[in-house]
């Protein structure tokens, strides 16, 4: 959660286990090392990587983000002489602990730890095993509060047995309102996920520590908005970098980057922070007791964070849907990857989605094609072709820059407003590549394929492409057999695309086009 560095010498809990404890035997001794807690980073940088397994067409699921990020934090910590445990609070919950790199410590790191236990009623109880606590009982009749010392003799798995001066008792089996009061929080329990390092210093020092780690639970993609001209031959292309943070940790005023391209990852086993809820059971209570047997209900666990926050950062709007933005990411080469840098620090908040402009291009040349895939497996088939926007990622077409994968929304202008006419996606596209955006299925263009003779191994077919539009449309039929398929068109020139026959034709306004062809599949 950012804020000022708060180097704390934690004098917690166990200092109390001194003279007064003599009445009861107490286990556990205070460790010799000092604990320094760093509550949050002073400066943070986040580089978000796209989930390599998520195809371009699948949108991000904000409840289940499988990309990752490299987080680099600078923290100022005052280190005492001797051995110290430095606790880095406020690291991402999705931290991959083995990826953590800690630098800037005067005498290096002895060991790194990541404690999966969070502070909760259950962990408080569990960690207090064998320690002295206070048992507080309140009389319902008089309201009188009575406190006595006790030592916890059982773990938190379902029940608590306490040792008091009177002997051994079970918590919550008395029918009285009773609770345990602790003298402090056991060390190693934080409210938030925590990474800690052990270090040894010959003298007290003020250190600027850099902590870098990979964290899961973030993802990003591009989101393109294409606005077609009335003729449909040009489009304005605008794009966002959309970053999503599904972690419980916010990165405040972070230098923010996103990396496009696929990089190899290995599976890491990750232990989720544990926050078990506490449910205590007791022996069966009979009805001979006149005390009320009302079991105190523990407060309900806080709901799983479903907070989501969307941030669109800094773009100046002219009047259009997305005009020239004031802030736009800059692109850099990063080995064989592409890095997009947000030019000013932004906050990538917990459970939020943030958008920064990626690119804006006017007047990009584009063509709309209706493409049907013909298999010939059926004797009579009515196919709705796919609507495809096609361009080439070149300067001539008005593009010529890397296009990272993401969703595309295509708008046209109709009835005096922008009208969505297709939603599709584009994979990572390098400069000079052909870009095809498959945006929905045709509504009034059909391909009717009838087998006139033969069977599905060897047959004669007639393809009739029809259009209900008052203007000519581009139609393509791709014949989707395998490499062993012999295709022969009758009286028409048929090209090839990706090794498959492709018939390209313009269907006249309110008209149709026909192709007779033969398919022969070797057995």
């Amino acid at each position, binding site marked *: 959660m950012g804020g000022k560095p708060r180097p704390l010498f934690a004098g917690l809990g166990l200092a109390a286990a001194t003279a007064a404890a003599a009445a009861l035997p107490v286990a556990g001794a205070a460790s010799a090392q000092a604990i320094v807690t760093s509550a949050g980073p002073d400066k943070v940088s986040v580089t978000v990587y796209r989930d390599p397994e998520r195809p371009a067409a699948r949108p991000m699921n904000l409840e289940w983000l499988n990309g990752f990020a490299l987080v680099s934090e600078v923290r100022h910590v005052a280190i005492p002489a001797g051995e110290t445990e430095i606790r880095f609070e406020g690291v991402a919950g999705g931290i991959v602990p083995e990826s953590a790199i800690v630098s800037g410590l005067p005498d290096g790191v002895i060991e790194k730890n990541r404690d999966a236990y969070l502070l909760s009623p259950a962990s408080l109880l569990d960690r207090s095993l064998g320690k002295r606590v206070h048992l507080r009982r309140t009389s319902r009749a008089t309201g009188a509060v009575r406190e006595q010392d006790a030592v916890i003799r059982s773990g938190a798995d379902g029940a608590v047995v306490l040792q008091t001066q009177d002997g051994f008792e079970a918590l919550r089996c008395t029918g009285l309102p009773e609770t345990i009061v602790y003298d402090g929080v056991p060390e190693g329990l934080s409210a938030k996920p925590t990474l800690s390092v052990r270090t040894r210093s010959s003298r007290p020092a003020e250190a600027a520590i850099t902590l870098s780690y990979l964290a899961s639970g973030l993802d990003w993609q591009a989101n393109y908005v294409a606005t077609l001209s009335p003729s449909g031959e040009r489009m304005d292309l605008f794009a966002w970098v959309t970053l999503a943070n599904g972690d419980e940790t916010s990165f405040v005023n972070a230098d923010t980057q996103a990396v496009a391209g696929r990089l190899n990852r290995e599976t890491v086993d990750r232990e989720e922070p544990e926050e078990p809820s506490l449910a205590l059971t007791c022996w069966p209570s009979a009805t001979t007791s006149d005390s009320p047997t009302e079991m105190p209900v523990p407060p309900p666990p806080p709901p799983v964070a479903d907070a989501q926050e969307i941030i669109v950062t800094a773009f100046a709007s002219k009047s259009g*849907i997305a005009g020239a933005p004031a802030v736009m990411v800059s692109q850099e080469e990063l080995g064989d990857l592409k890095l997009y840098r947000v030019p000013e620090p932004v906050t990538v908040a917990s459970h939020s989605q943030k958008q920064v402009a990626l690119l804006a291009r006017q007047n990009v040349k584009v063509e709309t094609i209706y493409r049907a895939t013909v298999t010939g497996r059926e*004797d*009579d088939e009515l196919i*709705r072709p796919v609507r495809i926007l096609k361009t080439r990622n070149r300067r001539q077409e008005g593009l010529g820059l890397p296009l990272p994968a993401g969703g595309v929304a295509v708008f046209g202008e109709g*009835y005096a407003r922008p009208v969505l006419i297709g939603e599709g996606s584009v994979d990572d596209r390098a400069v000079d590549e052909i870009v095809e955006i498959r945006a929905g299925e045709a509504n009034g263009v059909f391909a009717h394929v009838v087998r006139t003779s033969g069977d599905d191994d060897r*047959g004669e077919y007639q393809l009739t492409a029809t259009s209900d539009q008052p203007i000519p449309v581009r139609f393509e039929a791709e014949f989707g057999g395998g490499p062993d398929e012999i295709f022969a068109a009758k009286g028409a020139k048929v090209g090839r695309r990706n090794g498959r026959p492709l018939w390209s034709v313009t269907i006249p306004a309110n008209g149709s086009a026909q192709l007779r062809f033969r398919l022969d599949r070797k057995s």
Partner: protein
Amino acid sequence: MLPLRGKGNNEMRSAILLSVLAAAPAVAQTAQGDVAVTIYNDDLALVQDTRQLAVPAQRSRQEFPDVSGQIRPETVTLSGEGIEIVEQNFDFDLLSPGKLMEKAVGQEITLVRTNPATGAETRERATVLAANGGVVLRIGSRIEVLRDDGLPARVIFDKVPENLRARPTLSVTLQSAHAGTRPVRLSYLTPGLGWKADYVTLFDERAGKIDVQGWVTLTNTTGTTFTNADTLLVAGQVQQGGGSESDYRGYQPRRPPTIRKPGTETAGRERLGDFYLYPLPERTTIANRQTKQVSFLDVSGAPAHKAYEYRNSWLGTAEEAQSADTVLKFSTSRDQGLGDALPAGTVRVYMRDAHGNAQFIGENAIGHTPMGSELGVKTGEAFDVKVQPVVEQRERISSSRWKTSMRYTFSNARPEQVLVDLVQAGLDSYWDDTRITEESLKSERRSSDQAVWHVPVPANGTATLTATFDTRF
């Protein structure tokens, strides 16, 4: 009461009538401004909300409550004259006791304990240490779990954290050169708003005509009411495989498609690309959880006829007679039919009973259908018209050739003659050189796979069709 009227003209079709507009608009508090919604078939809408915003000079934070609860955040854009957007936030982090406590971790609260016997209250300040599966508090130097002993204890928070809200809220930090009120347009896509078409079709069998009323059925499950919205409906698919592609029937046995022949005529409607646009003539309030119906098509006296169809698979023998499909056939062409394109939806067919009341005889789904198409809508299976296909004989006539004799027995319990289209399919399922060597009625080869016979079956009578097929194997 069915909304069937006997109009004698085709004039109404271009008009869209609001059928369920409440007389007095509900006085609902909303922060929405001038709202325009564009609604697609496949559960998707584009919302444009132009609000009058009093913007002070320099930086200010403005809130936009009452956006759709299902807003797709990556599609949000905001524009306005002379303003620069510094940052947009959308919070649907809603205020709840759990959230309040979660956000209070590390902060101080006030704890008020009530003495169970006397009711006396004691106040203490406490620091919330953690809210993981229970609330851990530090009171003075001691650690306690909130309400662990079940005794009454009130927690009083000093304030509500800034981003916890009562309703989903978009907030924007603006930079403006000058102060003043100006329109600012917010636009976004949202699921939860969608529409489909419902066709009420009254079939007059004797006259061979249908009257068709098309209704748009609009549904809103966004969680938000769109007040006084300028509404445009768009027919067509914008997403791959999304929406109500009603020709798709999963793994059910293959049935003939509803569109028998796609049309190539352009309907007299507003278009954009291959989409048809259906603007509503008046602004309307689309309430949350509301279903609204609007008429968009009203055609009387279009030609239509009933047909019986039966499809037999190769070497199919039925142990007992099977009902033929009842299919209503009509066209969407300008000259011979409805004269309009039909957005995807459900066609419900009614006929008048002996008392003149309309009764339901079946329904089927149609996909987006261009004008000029020929449709065959299966409404059900005929009670009185049945077909029993039987493989009479299989004979080996050479090492590789077989002779298959089929007998199809038709029965008709109706008082008039019917015509049954019998399709024998599977003719190319093994080898393609299947020939029909003998037949008692002339067939029509529809494709290499299918032959069709148009078999007249006399009133209250039977008919028999025989055919002999020469096949390899």
